């Protein structure tokens, strides 16, 4: 039996639409069932001219002046996708190290997530010394309506060091998914509405 063109077109379209719905449902389930951790965030760049209906941030933690960089983060990694080990530090988590393979990263911290971490000096020619660890998990935006996003951006810029956190969900696949942000003690979660 030869299937007509209209039926074939609609079958392909429905298949693709279901694929997209499946992706959204799968990500929602993975986000809900993953392990939630809080990681420190900072404003991406307060001088940025571009803004919109999103809050832009970066996972960044300034280390104590005498603290050493976590293992594997001192130099730019020779790979583009690695595994970052996270370890609890009070109510939040911090970067404990990075490795190319999951098993190697697991030896550095109890929770591992796909991403890259780099540790660099934050000193300037005018003085001041320190180190900061930056984490790249593949996302750096929280979408919200414009007024809300602008208010959160302003609060994030004014927040003291360690005063802003991102709530992320780490799934069994090791992928990090954004759940919400905590700025100035106020938590905003992603939801379906």
């Amino acid at each position, binding site marked *: 039996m030869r299937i*007509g*063109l*209209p039926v074939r077109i*609609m079958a392909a379209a429905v298949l*693709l639409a279901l*694929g997209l719905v499946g992706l959204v449902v799968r990500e929602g389930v993975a986000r809900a069932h993953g392990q939630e951790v809080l990681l420190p965030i900072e404003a991406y760049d307060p001088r940025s001219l571009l803004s919109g209906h999103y809050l832009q941030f970066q996972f960044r933690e300034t280390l104590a002046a005498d603290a050493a960089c976590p293992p594997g983060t001192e130099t730019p990694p020779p790979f*583009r996708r690695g595994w970052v080990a996270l370890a609890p530090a009070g109510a939040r988590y911090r970067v404990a190290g990075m490795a190319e393979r999951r098993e190697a990263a697991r030896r550095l911290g109890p929770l591992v997530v796909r991403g890259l971490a780099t540790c660099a000096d934050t000193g300037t020619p005018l003085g001041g010394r320190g180190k900061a660890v930056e984490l790249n998990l*593949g996302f750096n935006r929280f979408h919200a309506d414009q007024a809300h996003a602008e208010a959160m951006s302003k609060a994030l810029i004014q927040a003291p060091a360690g005063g802003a956190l991102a709530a992320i969900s780490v799934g069994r696949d090791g992928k990090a998914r954004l759940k919400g942000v905590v700025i100035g003690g106020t938590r905003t979660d*992603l939801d379906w509405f």
Partner: protein
Amino acid sequence: MAGYRSRLEKDLDGWIARGLVPAVSREPILADVGEARRLDAATTLAILGALLAGVAVIAFVAANWSAIPRVVRFGLILAAFLGASGGAAWASGREKPVTTHVLLAVAALVFGAAIGLTGQIFDIAGDARTALRGAGLAAALLALAGRSPWPAAVALLFIGLGDVTGGGWFLGETRWPGWLVWAAPAGALLAWRWRSTALAHAAGLASIVAGFSLSAMHPHRPEGLFMAMAAVLAVLALGARSRRETAEAQASALYGWWAWGALIWFGAAGFGEAFRGVPHSVAWMAVSAAVVVLGRTDRHAAVTAAGIVALFAAGARLLFNLGVGLMTSAAVFGACAVAALVVAFVLKRARTA
């Protein structure tokens, strides 16, 4: 059509006056050509009104986008995609091929946008390359389902964008070539099967672009791959040339693009260590001159233009390789000129014999 009809009317009057065509045949011939379809004022205004209404709806939704609940936004995107696909299915059932192709291409583009917007709406992190390639595969599925060349061209566009996006092109890593390396020949094959000139152009262009991603297989010494690419494209160009009687428009389009590609990648190979030097530049000039001759023989403007442009590029490259030594340049160009004149003389003799 109107231009052809008026030319035909004038020609017919001349032929009748000279007795080549009987006067009684004038009206049947013109009736066979038919009148060009023209839109009346009411239809034109209706189309404009529909377009403006569409723009108004899009602007209204955009203005209130962030105020619309996430699930509803997602529903709107799916509705737009299914609406375009449903329209294409309806048009294909009523045998309106152009409408089907247009709506399927729109559906493919909307689905590509839907992938990005869904990621934004639900804050789903993802790789831009994967998203673009996913959009390309979706467009290819729609093309195959509807036997439609336009979404196939959209698929090549998305796959090409996926190849050049976020690939770490300048990191010097060894990687697999991009997806265009197989998608472009597949597009050419479909253009051939579906007799689509538009898809033939898209596939021809994609074949040239595919060469860029080949360098990723051997980032420090890509010239061998470029030379192989030039050879493959040259063979394909000659193949398309020989098939012009079967499907003239499609074969002609592919012939032109593949000739351009062969010359471009042949020239690019000369920038690598293995082929750098005067012999490559002279060979490039000779091949370019041969392509000019081929283009003139076949009355193919694109092939002729490819040869001429490559000839200039090869000449400039030769001068650079010679260190702009005027006496050496004069000797080399003189030798090339003599060679060209001898070939022209031999060809002329062969034709008159």
